[in-house]
């Protein structure tokens, strides 16, 4: 009987630990989710400027502009381009080296913060390994789907 009790307590304690671990896991998960929006959704939804989000769409043709900016005495190149879902457009600014497969007229996903209306500051432009690859998120944006068909 005593042995049985001991096992019961062990199981109970392990369960408690597991539940505790899962709670921490889920809380952490909720805090670190990065939501994906299409340009239209960016305009429709209230998005905090402190929240990191992903935005995806097609890079508008001839929208790529490079400007020189001086920050902390260093010259930097600020890249900006427009992404569109053929309904709304969003201006993306980015400082860094664009991924090798970045092209106008192709799909792209950027990660960063929404500044003010219609302006987005990208921290990362997500690269892809294959020029034929289209991120599924972009493929799912309805207006882009319609346009392609």
């Amino acid at each position, binding site marked *: 009987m005593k042995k049985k009790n001991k096992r019961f307590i062990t199981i109970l304690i392990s369960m408690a630990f597991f539940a505790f*671990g899962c709670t*921490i*896991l889920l809380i*952490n*998960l909720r*805090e*670190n*989710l*990065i*939501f*994906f*929006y299409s340009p239209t959704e960016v305009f429709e939804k209230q998005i905090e400027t402190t929240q*990191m989000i*992903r935005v995806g769409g097609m890079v508008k043709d001839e929208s790529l502009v*490079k400007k*020189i900016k001086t920050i902390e005495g*260093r*010259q*930097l*190149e600020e890249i900006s381009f427009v992404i569109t879902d053929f309904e709304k457009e969003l201006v993306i600014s980015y*400082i*860094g*080296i*664009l991924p*090798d*497969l970045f092209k106008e007229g192709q799909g792209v*996903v950027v990660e960063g913060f929404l500044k003010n209306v219609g302006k987005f500051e990208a921290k990362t432009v*997500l*690269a*892809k*390994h*294959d*020029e*034929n*690859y289209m*991120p*599924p*998120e972009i493929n*799912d944006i309805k207006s882009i789907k319609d346009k392609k068909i």
Partner: protein
Amino acid sequence: MISEIGFVFLTLTLVISSFSFAQLIYSHLSPKNFTFNHLKVTNLIFFFTLSSFISLTYSFLISDFSLNVVSQNSNSQLPIIYKFTGVWGNHEGSILLWLLVMTFFGFLFSKNSSATEEFKNNVLKIQNSLCFLVVSFVIFTSNPFEKSFPYPTEGGDLNPLLQDPGLAIHPPFLYLGYVGFSIIYSISVAALSDGVKQYFIKILKPWVFISWIFLTCGIGLGSWWAYYELGWGGFWFWDPVENASLLPWLTASALLHTIVVADKKKIFINWTIILSILTFILSLLGTFLVRSGVLVSVHAFANDPTRGVYILLLLASISFFGIFKYINKNIQLRRVDITLISREGMISLNNIFMLSLTFTILVGTIYPLFASVLFNSKISVGAPFFNSILMPVMFPFIAGMIIGPFTKWGKDDLIVLLNRIKILIFCFFIISLLVWYLNYKTPILSIIFIALGCWIIFSSLFEVFQFIDKKLRIPKKIFAQITAHIGIGLLIIGATGSSILKQEKIQFQEVGQSLKIKNFDVEFLGVKKIEGPNYISQMGVFSIKKQGEQIKILRPEKRFYNAGKQVTTEAAIHSSIFGDLYIAIGDVHEDKTKWTTRIWFNPFTIWIWIGVFFLATGGSLSFLNSLSRK
């Protein structure tokens, strides 16, 4: 002509392996069993698959553009080495390689002399059935011998990112690891219906080690490739595809520890079987995630969703079979009580942490998938999730890793144990002060982790010291464990340095302009135009100076590949034991005198690769040891 022969061989593999599959199904439906020699099937399907693979390789080498895979992934300008590696640089070829490795493991097992004929036959029955499932996947959804007519006279291009020696050898290693777990699955499941004679642990052991070594090298090579080829200055991004390879690695590492106890103490037998099955399931899950394209990943290649459905069915049926067999097992095992402060207890603790890590990473990786199906919301889980959840788990994990090797089998006492390692604890105190003194300006977290890394290395060295002190020879098993643990210590130091302590500068750099990073002066000398065999490259020339003295010229490149009209970045790296100076070059400004340059200083990165080498060496020593003790 050769390619037709290749397809015939592949079909023969399907037909012959179906015998094994049919017998497996029949043996579960009917109590009357007939005997069937699965060894012959194993040998035949291995040679047929090998011939088929050779035919495909030959088609790539002679640039037979009538084959779709060749015309899409290779061209006549391609250097011969990349024509060869192009065989697995595409979906169809890589799955054929997967099949080849699977049949090869079966073949190797059939030559294994220690198992009884009956047990061998049972294992191979399962292994051949797995091969049957994979070969049907190859033929019906991703046939590498598919032709088109009329065919192009010139091919497309092998994805330029893949035209690199690091990536060329990375998939075969990864597959040898992933697929090596198939034989572990087969042995464990066969053992379940065999009443689990204890000797199966001895048969299983070398396969666990060898697969683990290959998977470790595969992951190491993959992140090394990402580090220097992608030009992002990092080696690990918590990307779903990367996580997918880490999951089976973690459970395999848990298995590695458990099987030692299972072999020595004849306990944890059930647990060994569960881990074996789980590891193979996670390998398949990894393949599913990589190949189906259901997850948004920076590593995603173009792929086909119908294949995903097939792999999912494969995954489900193999998991179901494993679980079914486990529930219907006939094993009588004695129960033993384990105290925490003992070698067995510490290894259980290791397993609990390894599995917690696996579970956490699994949730983080597939949660977006559930969210998109259930809530129709598109989300991804960022790197901060993994970092914030893993860090707290690391502390008890490392503590266990340090104390574990000093505990005794059976039962140990905490006070006696601490007394035994009191010199070590004193050394930890000194090391921590030293690390803090050397890095006091850096973030506290980096000091903690570097100190912990040093603790692990030092405690491993202390083990060596103990043996020398008692004038004993170090047993091979212990030596392997020490080597692998030092590897983990180095890995922690390297990963901390190249993540928390990383310094980055991005700017327009004029020709002749010099920049300071860490204690290096980086002078931009200009850009040269270079013509490679199948690309044109713009090569930046940077002079690296330290205290006014030139120590190295670095040449990062931006390559333009003619055939596919694609651009790749080739970073240039100056490595030293203290850190890597890492330069990538971007685009030129309109006035043609300024270039975007991105310069990193990544402290201790080299220790990551050295750590992986130590891990692989430790694994190899264990492997050799498990072979010689038969």
